[in-house]
């Protein structure tokens, strides 16, 4: 985000106080829900049901976090989410680096057609494949395994990551690769020793997008992995609701635990993520 003013609207609101209000509105819109959940997670049951409701917790407590881990195996949900997200991110990167290299560097006859196909796949509604994927995973005995999620999540992120990497690879001068090959690298060696390291920021950004996609997915995780030891975080989090009770402070604590990993990624790599997201239209 450059600091260059866009005079179209900015001069309308260029006064300092107005800028302050605009910034405040943006921050409240973006942060308030997460902040509110954080506040809720620190409240006692008694404070929560006090009327009128309090905003900032009066007597912050961490007991809800303890309970979130003891009521349900939250650490197992976290572990499953991490493993599924990491495995699918790794697989997505490997497959899309190879495909993107072919599309960026080799003079393919059907390059345009392949790129159109990839764009078409990127808009594909994975929900509609719930039934056949369920059947396939069932036949292959893959229900209640990480693989049942890793494969679809890889396909979910593959088009976007490939398109992104194609444009990154095209920005690397061919001379560098040629020089490496003269020095005795194979073409694949040149790809992994020269092109990928030079594109590290791009590869990394693609990885973050793939990770967030996998971390967020709910429907397939809900449908394929119902075994308690294989539930991912979004699926596990529903289990805190009892038949009649809805322990909001404990649910909030579990939500905070689930938000933190992705929030840390976003805070550290915000600029890269923004550039990656806006490089091409991506599902949101």
């Amino acid at each position: 985000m450059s600091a260059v003013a866009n005079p179209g609207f900015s001069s309308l609101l260029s006064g300092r106080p107005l800028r302050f209000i605009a910034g405040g509105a943006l921050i409240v819109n973006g942060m308030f829900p997460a902040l509110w959940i954080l506040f809720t997670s620190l409240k006692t049951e008694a404070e929560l049901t006090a009327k009128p409701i309090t905003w900032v917790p009066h007597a912050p407590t961490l007991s809800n976090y303890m309970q979130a881990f003891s009521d349900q195996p939250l650490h197992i949900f976290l572990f499953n989410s991490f493993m599924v997200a990491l495995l699918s991110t790794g697989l997505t990167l490997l497959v899309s680096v190879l495909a993107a290299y072919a599309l960026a560097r080799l003079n393919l006859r059907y390059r345009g057609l392949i790129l159109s196909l990839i764009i078409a796949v990127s808009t594909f509604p994975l929900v509609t494949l719930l039934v056949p994927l369920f059947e396939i995973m069932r036949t292959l005995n893959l229900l209640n395994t990480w693989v049942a999620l890793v494969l679809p999540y890889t396909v979910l992120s593959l088009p976007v990551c490939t398109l992104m990497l194609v444009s990154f690879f095209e920005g690397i001068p061919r001379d560098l690769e040629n020089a490496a090959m003269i020095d005795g690298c194979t073409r694949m060696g040149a790809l992994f020793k020269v092109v990928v390291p030079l594109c590290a920021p791009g590869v990394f950004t693609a990885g973050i997008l793939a990770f967030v996609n996998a971390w967020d997915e709910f429907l397939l995780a809900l449908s394929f992995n119902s075994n308690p030891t294989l539930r991912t975080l979004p699926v596990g989090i529903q289990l805190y609701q009892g038949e009649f009770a809805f322990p909001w402070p404990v649910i909030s604590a579990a939500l905070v635990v689930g938000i933190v990993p992705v929030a840390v990624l976003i805070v550290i790599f915000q600029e890269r993520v923004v550039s990656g997201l806006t490089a091409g239209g991506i599902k949101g």
Partner: protein
Amino acid sequence: MTNTSTLIAARPADRGPPAWTRWLDLGDRALAVVLLAPAAILLALIIVYPVLRLGYTSFFSLSLTSGLPGEFVGLENYSLMLEDPVFWETTWNTVLITLITVPGALLAGLALALLANLPFGVQWPVRLSLLIPWALPLSFAGLIFAWFFHSEYGVVNDVLNRMGFEGIIWFNSPNWAFAAICLTIIWKTSSFMALIILAGLQTIPRSLYEAADVDGAGRIRQFFEITLPLLKPSIVVALIFRTITALQTFDIPYMMTGGGPGTSTATLAMYIHQNTVSFLDLGYGSALAVVMFALSMCVTAVYLRAIRTKE
């Protein structure tokens, strides 16, 4: 690339790569096949075969609860569907959610982008405020907003009370529940829209506005005659992606209302999930999915055409 190949062939053997990698030194065409194969295999397994299978299964009566093998029933699943009021209700809800939340997210996203484009001294809080809603899982957003709209202890009703209005029991009435779901979806998706539009805004050359100033065009006119037309390409792409994801809406209503009261806020994706996973009625679930597939292919066709005209 032919030059390099001869160079590689001509180099002394002792400087060559380890022998086990030498099979990778292929011609362009063979190399392309090897490099594209993993992606092609994955797409074939997870998309192409399932799509064919989907169409095929939709002509069968296949229920896993009965334990019987599938029986070919032709178009029976489809004729059942046409007479199924829940199919029509969930489809209508899905279309309505799309028609409300896509323009809603566009307008909210446009407003957020215009605000974020102001010359702030510090950029990171603004950037983060747009990224956090995008990164928050949809299912989490659904739970968080269910708590926001809680009739007794929710912050929305608290604010309404403070402003002198009566609190609303959001999830007891179909219309209010629907409104709460739409607001949540708009909040969740508008930030991504804003990021795309903001990137578009930042490519508009400043000189255009300076020229318009010289010509005496006002701010509002500049917005409609410079900003909006130049934003159109980025808006079109964002809109189409948003439309396709809106047709698949599942997480937020599932978490907020579970489709209730009754089936008044259930979406087509929720109905597919229910038929497949809860009722194990794969034939009917497939027929429902074919409908959603058709809806979304229409949008994709529009998208591919829009991209082609852009080039």
